[in-house]
C-alpha cells in the first residue's frame, strides 16, 4: 500500500488502514519521540497521542509534503508539547510536593540511555543525552532527528521546515554547544 492509498483509506475512516499505519510507523514515531523526551514510558504515551492526533486530523492533510514528513512533524510537535507541559508542572512542584496530581514522579531518572545505543558506547551516550537536553529547542530537534532517527539534512529540513543550509548551521552550532556543555560537565565532575 502506497502512502497515498494509505492516506485515502485513513480519510475514508478505514480501521484496517489505521492498523497498517500504526504497525508500519510505530517504530518511526516511538524512536523520534524517545530521542526528544528521553523516557520510555513518556515516549509510549506521546506516541499513542501522535497516532490519535493523526487519526483525528488526517482529513486536514493536504498532501503538500510527504505523509512521512507530516507524521514526523506531528511526532516532534507532540513531544515538544509534552516537554513544555512537564516543565510547567515542575515549576509548580514546590506546591504539589514531589508527586504530581497523578502521583507520578516529576523528576526524571537522570541516566537515560537510548536502547539502541551500542553496548560499548552506553556510558558516553548517557552523558551526551544529558547534554542534548540543555541545547536550544531548534538545535535539539535538528541534532536528534539527524543523529537518533538517522535523517539526512534534507529530510530534517523538510520536517522542521527550513532550508538544508539552516539545518547544517543548526547541527554545527549544536555540536559546538555540546562541546562546551561536555567540558563544563567534566569540570564539575572533578
Amino acid at each position: 500500500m502506497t502512502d497515498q492509498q494509505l492516506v485515502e483509506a485513513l480519510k475514508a475512516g478505514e480501521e484496517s488502514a489505521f492498523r497498517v499505519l500504526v504497525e508500519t510507523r510505530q517504530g518511526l514515531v516511538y524512536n523520534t519521540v524517545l530521542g526528544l523526551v528521553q523516557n520510555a514510558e513518556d515516549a509510549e504515551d506521546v506516541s499513542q497521542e501522535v497516532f490519535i492526533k493523526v487519526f483525528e486530523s488526517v482529513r486536514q492533510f493536504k498532501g503538500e509534503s510527504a505523509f512521512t514528513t507530516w507524521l514526523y512533524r506531528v511526532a516532534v510537535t507532540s513531544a515538544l508539547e509534552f516537554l513544555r507541559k512537564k516543565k510547567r508542572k515542575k515549576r509548580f512542584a514546590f506546591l504539589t510536593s514531589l508527586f504530581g496530581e497523578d502521583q507520578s514522579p516529576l523528576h526524571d531518572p537522570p541516566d537515560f540511555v537510548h536502547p539502541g545505543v551500542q553496548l560499548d558506547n552506553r556510558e558516553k551516550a548517557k552523558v551526551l543525552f544529558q547534554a542534548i537536553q540543555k541545547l536550544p529547542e531548534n538545535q535539539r530537534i535538528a541534532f536528534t532527528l539527524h543523529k537518533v532517527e538517522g535523517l539526512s539534512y534534507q529530510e530534517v529540513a523538510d520536517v522542521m521546515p527550513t532550508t538544508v543550509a539552516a539545518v547544517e548551521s543548526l547541527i554545527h552550532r549544536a555540536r559546538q554547544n555540546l562541546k562546551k556543555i561536555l567540558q563544563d560537565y567534566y569540570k564539575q565532575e572533578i
Partner: protein
Amino acid sequence: MPKKRLTDQQVEEILDSLSGMEKAEPRPFFYTRLQARMANEADNSAWGRTISLISRPAVAFSVVVLFLLMNGYFLFNKFGQQPSPAEETYQALAVEYSEMNSPFYEVNQETP
C-alpha cells in the same frame, strides 16, 4: 590546581557515541494498547469534558461568587419582605378569636 579538560578526541568520541545506534521500538502489542486508550477516551469524553470544565479555576470561582450573591440577595430580601396573604388571614382569624373570648360577651350573657 588546574582543572582537567577533556581532549578534543574525547569530546569527539562522546559526540560520536550515537553512531551505529539501532532504532528503538515500542513494547509489543502497541496497537492493542492504543486501541484500548482510544476506546477509553471515547467513553470518558463527555464526562471528562464536564469535569475539566467545572474544575477550571475561573468556572469554579464564578460558581462560588454566584452562589454567594444569590445568598445575599435572598437574605436581604427576607428583611424587607411584606407578610404573605396567608399570614394576613391567620392574623385576622387570631384577632377575631381573641375578641370572641373577650369578657365583653360574658358580661352581656343572659342567665336562664
